[in-house]
C-alpha cells in the first residue's frame, strides 16, 4: 500500500478508531477526554494538510479500492478517493471541527457527561471525514448514516430536556426521509449500470438521459434531507436544542454540507432537468428561510434559518449547470460559510454561555460593552454572512449571484433578493444583541468568555475576513472559470447595504417600525411567523392523520388478522391434541392390541406390495 493511500485512510481512521478511547479515558478523569478528543482532530487536520500539499497540490489523485465481497457477481468497491474536491472538504471539516472542539473545551467545561460529548464530537467529525473521502457510494452512505446518528446523539445530548429529546428524534426522522431517496438512488445507479456506478468514478457508466435524471434526482432527495432544504428543512431549527457547539459543528462543518458535497461529487450524472430542480429548490429555500429568519426571536434559530438559506445558495450554484465552475462556486461558498457560520455560532455560544442560555434576542441588548471581543467577532460574522464587500461572503455569494445572471433572470433576481433578506436578518440579530440597553437581568450581568473560547472565535473571524484572497486560486484549483466583473455586481452590494441600513433603522435603536409593519401586513406576518405552516402541516396532517392513521390500520390488521390467524393455528393444534390424546389410556394390553393391529396392517401392506410387484 502506498504511503499516500495510508495517509489518506488515516485522516478519518485516526478519529474513528480513537473515539471509544476518548469516552473510555473519561472514566479515569473527565478532562482527559477533552484533551484527547481535541488532539485526535488536530492530528487528523495535520494529516489532511500533509496529504493536500504533498499529493493533491501536485495533481496526484489518491485512489485506492478493493472488492468488499468477491463472491458476489457485481463488485462492491470500498476504499478512499482523495481528489481536489475531497481534500478541500477534508481540510475544511477537520480544521473547523478542530476549532469547534477547542471551543467546546471551554463551553462544556462543567458538563458532567463531557467525556461522552467529546467522544461523539470526534465520531461526528470522523464520519464526515470518511464521507468526503469515500470511494464508493456505499461507504459514502454508511458514513452518511453515521453522521445522522451522531447528529441524533448530539442534538439530544441534554436528553433530560423534553425539547431536546424530541428535536433529536425529529432530526433523525426527517433526514431519514431523505435517506430513503438516497438509498433508492444508489439502488437505481446499480441497476442502470450493472454495478459500475457504485464507485464515485464510475458514475459515467449510466448512459441514458432519463436514467441519469432518475438517479440524480433520487440522490438530490437524499441531499435535501441532510442539507435541510425545502421541504425537509424543518428539523434544523429544532436541532438548536442541543449544545451550541453541536449546532456549530452541524451547520458549519459536518452535517448540512454533506448534501452539497454529495451533489458536487455526483455532478457528472446531473441532467439539465435535474439541475433546474436543484436550482429552484435552492432559490425557493433561500427566500422561504430568509423571510422566516426575519421574524424569529431565538438567536440560534435565526442562525439556523440563515444556514438553510446559505445552503440554498450552494445548491443554487450547483443548479446553474456551469460544470466545474458550478462546483467551484458552490464549494467556495461552502467553505466561506463554514468559517463565518462557525464563527457566528461560536460567538452566539459565547453569548449564551455568559447569559445562562437565554436565547431570546429581545432579552439581550447592549452586549458590546460587556463582551467586546465576542461582539466584534459576531459583527465580522454578520458582515461576512451578508456579503459586505471584501469579506468571505462577498466573494462567495456575489459570485454566485453574478454567475446566475447568464443562466436565468428569475434566479438572478431571487438570489439578489435572498441577499437582501440575508443582510436584513443577520443585522437584525446583531443589532438586537449588541446595541441598545440590556433588556434582562442576565444581559445586565453578562461577562466576557475565557480565552479557550475566544481563540477559536478569533481564528475564525480572521478567516472570515481574509478568505476572499483565496478565491481565484480556489476556482483554478477546482477547475472553475472566474466570472468577469460587471456593473451588475453592484446590485447585490447595494441591496445588502440597504438591508443593513434598514436593519439599523428598525432594530438598531428604539423603534416601533417592526410592530407597525407586523400589524400592517397582519396575515402575511402570521404566515411567516408560523413558518408558512410547514411544521404544522407535517405535524397535524402527515404525522397525525396520515402516519398515525396508517399505523392504526396496520395495528388493527396485525391484531385482528395476523394475530387471529396465528391464534387459529394454535387453537387447531391444541384441540387436535385434546382429541387424539384419548388413545393414551395407560393400559398395557390396549397398547399391545394396537401394536398387533399395526403388525397385521403392515403384513397386509407387504402382501399387497408383493402382489403389485413393487417388492419381488
Amino acid at each position, binding site marked *: 500500500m502506498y504511503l499516500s493511500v495510508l495517509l489518506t485512510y488515516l485522516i478519518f481512521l485516526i478519529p474513528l478508531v480513537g473515539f471509544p478511547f476518548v469516552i473510555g479515558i473519561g472514566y479515569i478523569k473527565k478532562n482527559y477526554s477533552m484533551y484527547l478528543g481535541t488532539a485526535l482532530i488536530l492530528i487528523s487536520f495535520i494529516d489532511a494538510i500533509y496529504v493536500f500539499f504533498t499529493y493533491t497540490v501536485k495533481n496526484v489523485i489518491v485512489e485506492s479500492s478493493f472488492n468488499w465481497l468477491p463472491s458476489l457477481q457485481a463488485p462492491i468497491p470500498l476504499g478512499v478517493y482523495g481528489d481536489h474536491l475531497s481534500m478541500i472538504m477534508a481540510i475544511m471539516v477537520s480544521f473547523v471541527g478542530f476549532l469547534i472542539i477547542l471551543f467546546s473545551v471551554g463551553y462544556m467545561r462543567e458538563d458532567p457527561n463531557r467525556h461522552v460529548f467529546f467522544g461523539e464530537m470526534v465520531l461526528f467529525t470522523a464520519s464526515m471525514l470518511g464521507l468526503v473521502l469515500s470511494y464508493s457510494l456505499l461507504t459514502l452512505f454508511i458514513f452518511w448514516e453515521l453522521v445522522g446518528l451522531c447528529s441524533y446523539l448530539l442534538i439530544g445530548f441534554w436528553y433530560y430536556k423534553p425539547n431536546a429529546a424530541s428535536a433529536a428524534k425529529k432530526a433523525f426522522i426527517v433526514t431519514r426521509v431523505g435517506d430513503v431517496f438516497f438509498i433508492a438512488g444508489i439502488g437505481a445507479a446499480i441497476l442502470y449500470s450493472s454495478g459500475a456506478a457504485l464507485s464515485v468514478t464510475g458514475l459515467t457508466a449510466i448512459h441514458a438521459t432519463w436514467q441519469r435524471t432518475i438517479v440524480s434526482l433520487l440522490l438530490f432527495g437524499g441531499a435535501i434531507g441532510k442539507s435541510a432544504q425545502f421541504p425537509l428543512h424543518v428539523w434544523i431549527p429544532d436541532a438548536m436544542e442541543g449544545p451550541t457547539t453541536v449546532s456549530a459543528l452541524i451547520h458549519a462543518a459536518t452535517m448540512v454540507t454533506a448534501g452539497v458535497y454529495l451533489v458536487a461529487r455526483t455532478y457528472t450524472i446531473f441532467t439539465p432537468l435535474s439541475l433546474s430542480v436543484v436550482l429552484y429548490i435552492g432559490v425557493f429555500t433561500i427566500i422561504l428561510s430568509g423571510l422566516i429568519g426575519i421574524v424569529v426571536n431565538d438567536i440560534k434559530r435565526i442562525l439556523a434559518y440563515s444556514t438553510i438559506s446559505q445552503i440554498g445558495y450552494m445548491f443554487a450554484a450547483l443548479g446553474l449547470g456551469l460544470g466545474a465552475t458550478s462546483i467551484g462556486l458552490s464549494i467556495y461558498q461552502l467553505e466561506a460559510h463554514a468559517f463565518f457560520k462557525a464563527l457566528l455560532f461560536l460567538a452566539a455560544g459565547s453569548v449564551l454561555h455568559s447569559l445562562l442560555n437565554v436565547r431570546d434576542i429581545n432579552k439581550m441588548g447592549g452586549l458590546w460593552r460587556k463582551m467586546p471581543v465576542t461582539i466584534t467577532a459576531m459583527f465580522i460574522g454578520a458582515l461576512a454572512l451578508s456579503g459586505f464587500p471584501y469579506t468571505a461572503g462577498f466573494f462567495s455569494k456575489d459570485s454566485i449571484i453574478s454567475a446566475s445572471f447568464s443562466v436565468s433572470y428569475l434566479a438572478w433576481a431571487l438570489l439578489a433578493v435572498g441577499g437582501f433578506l440575508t443582510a436584513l436578518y443577520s443585522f437584525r440579530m446583531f443589532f438586537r444583541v449588541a446595541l441598545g440597553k440590556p433588556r434582562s437581568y442576565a444581559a445586565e450581568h453578562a461577562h466576557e468568555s475565557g480565552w479557550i473560547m475566544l481563540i477559536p472565535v478569533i481564528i475564525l473571524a480572521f478567516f472570515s475576513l481574509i478568505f476572499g484572497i483565496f478565491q481565484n486560486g480556489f476556482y483554478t484549483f477546482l477547475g472553475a472559470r472566474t466570472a468577469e466583473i460587471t456593473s451588475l455586481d453592484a446590485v447585490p452590494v447595494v441591496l445588502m447595504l440597504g438591508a443593513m441600513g434598514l436593519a439599523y433603522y428598525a432594530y438598531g435603536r428604539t423603534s416601533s417600525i417592526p410592530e407597525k409593519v407586523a400589524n400592517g401586513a397582519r396575515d402575511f406576518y402570521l404566515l411567516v411567523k408560523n413558518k408558512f405552516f410547514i411544521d404544522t402541516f407535517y405535524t397535524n396532517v402527515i404525522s397525525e392523520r396520515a402516519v398515525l392513521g396508517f399505523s392504526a390500520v396496520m395495528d388493527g390488521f396485525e391484531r385482528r388478522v395476523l394475530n387471529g390467524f396465528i391464534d387459529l393455528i394454535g387453537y387447531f393444534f391444541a384441540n387436535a391434541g385434546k382429541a387424539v390424546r384419548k388413545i393414551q*389410556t*395407560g393400559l*398395557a*394390553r390396549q397398547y399391545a392390541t394396537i401394536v398387533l393391529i399395526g403388525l397385521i396392517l403392515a403384513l397386509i401392506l407387504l402382501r399387497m406390495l408383493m402382489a403389485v410387484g413393487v417388492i419381488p
Partner: protein
Amino acid sequence: MISVVAGQMNMGAVEFLSIALLSIGIYSFLASRTVVKALISVEIMINAGLVNLVAASSYYGNAEGADLTLFILVVAAAETVVAIALFVAVFRKKGSAGLDVMKLLRW
C-alpha cells in the same frame, strides 16, 4: 461346532411352530391380568422368534444365528429380572401388581 447339513430340515414346519408360539404368546398377553402371566407371554413371544432364528441358522449352515440366540436369551432373561424387580416395587407400593392397576401413564 455343530455340524449342520443344508437342506435336511423342513423349514415350513419350523415356521409353523414359530408362528404358533407367537400367536399363543400374543393371545396370552392380551388375556393376562397379572404381570407374571404377561411376562411369561412375552418370554414365549421372544422364544418364538428365537426358534425361527436357530432353525434358519441350521438351514443355511451358518452358526452365527445360533450364537446370536444365546445372547438374546441372556438379554431377555436380564429384562425379565428388571421387570420383576419393578413389579415387586409396584406391588409393595400399591398392594397389587395387576396389569390394569398400572395405568398412571395416561392422558
